[in-house]
């Protein structure tokens, strides 16, 4: 454990140091190129705003109204019937939609069931093995100004489904229930 946290603390500064030393040896005008490259950061962030506002407000209305909870609890019996632990269903459904929601839910599951319980481990694996698909698509497409996501959303969500199913299978095989 010590090693892992040490590595993640050292990684970022070492990477920065490496790039700067390497560039200096290659005679790059480091500071000037940094400023030049960083310039567009502001405009990119600003161009993401409308996309993120649109998406986040919709998700929040959906969640705060209780509609999301209702939908989840109506799907729950089917998923429980095919062997998905019922405690994990809400997390599995929220993971691709809301990053903060999923994180809160994972902490909650770990807190209630214990970090080393089956549910705790399953929640941890699920949280770590997939990403917030909707957020990633919104930010990346927003940054370059593409409104139509095409097949990207379908592909992303289907891959999430596979990720969630494999998390359940792998954790069951490794840690048992």
């Amino acid at each position: 454990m010590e090693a892992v946290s040490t590595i993640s603390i050292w990684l970022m500064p070492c990477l920065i140091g490496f790039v700067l030393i390497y560039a200096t040896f290659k005679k790059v005008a480091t500071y000037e190129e940094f400023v030049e490259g960083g310039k567009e950061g502001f405009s990119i962030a600003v161009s993401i705003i409308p996309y993120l506002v649109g998406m986040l407000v919709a998700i929040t209305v959906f969640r705060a109204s209780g509609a999301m909870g209702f939908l989840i609890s109506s799907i729950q019996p089917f998923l429980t019937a095919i062997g998905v632990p019922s405690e994990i269903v809400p997390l599995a459904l929220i993971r691709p939609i809301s990053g903060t929601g999923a994180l809160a839910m994972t902490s909650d599951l770990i807190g209630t069931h214990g970090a080393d319980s089956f549910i705790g481990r399953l929640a941890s694996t699920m949280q770590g093995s997939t990403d917030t698909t909707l957020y990633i698509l919104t930010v990346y497409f927003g940054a370059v100004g593409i409104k139509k996501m095409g097949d990207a959303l379908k592909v992303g969500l289907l891959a999430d489904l596979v990720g969630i199913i494999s998390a359940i299978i792998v954790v069951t095989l490794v840690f048992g229930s």
Partner: protein
Amino acid sequence: MVNLIWVFMFVFGIVYAAINGTMEEVNKVLFKSAQEAVTISLGLISILVFWLGLMNIAKKAGLLDKLTGLFKPIVRRLFPDVPPDHPAMGYILSNMVANLFGLGNAATPMGIKAMEQMKKLNEDRDEVSRSMITFLAINTSSLTIIPTTVIAIRMNYGSVSPTDIVGTTLIATACSTVAAVLIDRYFHRRRMQKRRH
């Protein structure tokens, strides 16, 4: 599809709130979430400026080309539409490497640069290209080797072995990434067939 999902979340939420008397909650979060979205976007400025600046140095020093050279055989197959020496490759790879090492906030600016280059390859049309879908599919399936956030949460809740989920996470991630690539290929083939008919 985005339009439908988007409208569905709003309309279903509002109708549900009307029936179940949660309209007050909806009202409360409506503009709070809009503000949150702006805060998140503006919060990206600092990491975007920093990492785009550093990326520019790395690019000028030839580090991105080095990275591309190293992984050429793999990415060439993943992104057949991107010419192997195109700058997009360097950005795609640096995004993947940053993701692998859990440098989430460095990965985003690199990914955005990759998207920019892929848009240029697509003659600046505001449509998705094949390589963009592949790139995002891989990104959304998460590539992290060490899920640091989860480990931190597990430590907070007094886990005896906070890292024992690294293995299971790795396998699940691998499954979803492979699935993402395969599903992406399937949809690509379907689009091609549609175009032919």
